[in-house]
């Protein structure tokens, strides 16, 4: 097994800064924005993105967490998963622009589950998707609006996102 580092700490920071700019451009500012990270690493990325946005736009952007465990379509095929807390910021999501944040976009099934979870919580005006890595191999008609890095990969390869908050270091590696 060989591991290759594709993104390092500085690359991740740069990617998030660029995504923040793109979000502000697409949304014409930070008004009505709500960032929802998908546990576990998506939540940390959402917090970082929120901090960058707050710095760029000089106003705090609400950041929360959206757990999709209970909405997955593969629950009965795997051992029971422990759910994570969902945290919706004060002010809710009704009529807002919600940006879902996740670490890796792969089959698209997690995002499908997230969209279902979202519709049980309220009715956002718009839902966007930001991911750190898009590795392809979609199984559903879903695409990301903001991508940190496109990483064409074989399905046999594994992609690991490590973040300071959970893993003690910042890097994205690909193992084959």
């Amino acid at each position, binding site marked *: 097994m060989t591991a290759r580092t594709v993104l390092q700490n500085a690359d991740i920071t740069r990617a998030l800064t660029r995504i923040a700019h793109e979000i502000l451009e697409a949304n014409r500012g930070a008004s009505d924005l709500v960032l929802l990270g998908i546990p576990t690493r998506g939540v940390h990325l959402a917090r970082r993105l929120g901090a960058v946005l707050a710095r760029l736009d000089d106003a705090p952007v609400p950041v929360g967490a959206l757990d999709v465990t*209970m909405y997955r379509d593969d629950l009965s095929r795997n*051992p029971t998963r422990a759910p994570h807390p969902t945290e919706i910021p004060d002010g809710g999501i009704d009529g807002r622009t919600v940006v879902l944040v996740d670490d890796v976009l792969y089959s698209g099934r997690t995002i499908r589950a997230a969209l279902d979870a979202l519709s*049980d919580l309220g009715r956002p005006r718009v839902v966007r998707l930001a991911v750190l890595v898009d590795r392809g191999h979609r199984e559903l008609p879903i695409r990301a609006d903001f991508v940190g890095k496109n990483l064409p990969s074989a399905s046999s390869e594994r992609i690991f996102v490590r973040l300071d908050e959970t893993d003690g270091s910042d890097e994205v590696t690909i193992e084959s």
Partner: protein
Amino acid sequence: MRHLLSTADLTREQAVRILDVAEDMADVATREVKKLPTLRGRTVVNLFFEDSTRTRISFEAAAKRLSADVINFSAKGSSVSKGESLKDTAQTLAAIGADGVVIRHSASGAPAVLAANAWIDAPVVNAGDGTHEHPTQALLDAFTIRRRLHGAGARGRSLDGVRVVIVGDILHSRVARSNVWLLATLGAEVRLVAPATLLPLGVRDWPVEVDLHLDDALTTNPDVVMMLRIQGERMRDAFFPSAREYAREYGLDEERLGRLRADTMVMHPGPMNRGLEISAAAADSARSVVLDQVANGVSIRMAVLYLLLSGAEEGIA
């Protein structure tokens, strides 16, 4: 663990995990859509051989909030009253396609029999069996205590050092048994209070302290006082002289309530006999968490059904 039969089977990690999942389930009740699609297409059978309103309704609400289909079976008016055995009933349910069985039975051990035999291949949840156990009641009690003590920061925590006094008919109480094992596993200090006639023989070997007088137990500065229901049929069996004498010695009256700390929780598994084991003043006071217990019961049962029914294997890991 594939079944939930007894709280004695739970490790500390498993117990905390169930409580943590219940926290997530409790959040669902505060949302616009109070339903999750998780158990869509699964069928849960409530198999109640003994009367129960609140436990059955609570399990039914829990299963429905997880989008499961629910079949309620009560022994009255069923083939059981015509003499059908547990085995035949179980095989019938298996043929119908039950994915989970919630069972209440007047015989201690009936859920274990159902789980141990190959009559039906579905997770079994004990909803109260004889004088043996009532695990989801104990879990909801622990959940209620943890939530009241730690609020939003309750996830991941145990009940280390929490002082719990359980008062009443320990001898016949499955709620007391399930609570004793679970609370001890979670690190709480449990003290049982009952007249000697209502204490089981083996109580000296339990991980608890025992008091014969409520007034002695109240001097230990408890964080929780849990009053058990005195069942009407016990009166005739002369375990104590009269209802009035029981109320005087073991009832949580207004005067005893006044001796508790302002933040001591008063619990009761319901249904309450007001004026007997618990006074109206205690039941309705700010210390009472009786209605929290009922609400939390749904969250706990959702957590248990989720953990046992959703995955492909192992259940409560």
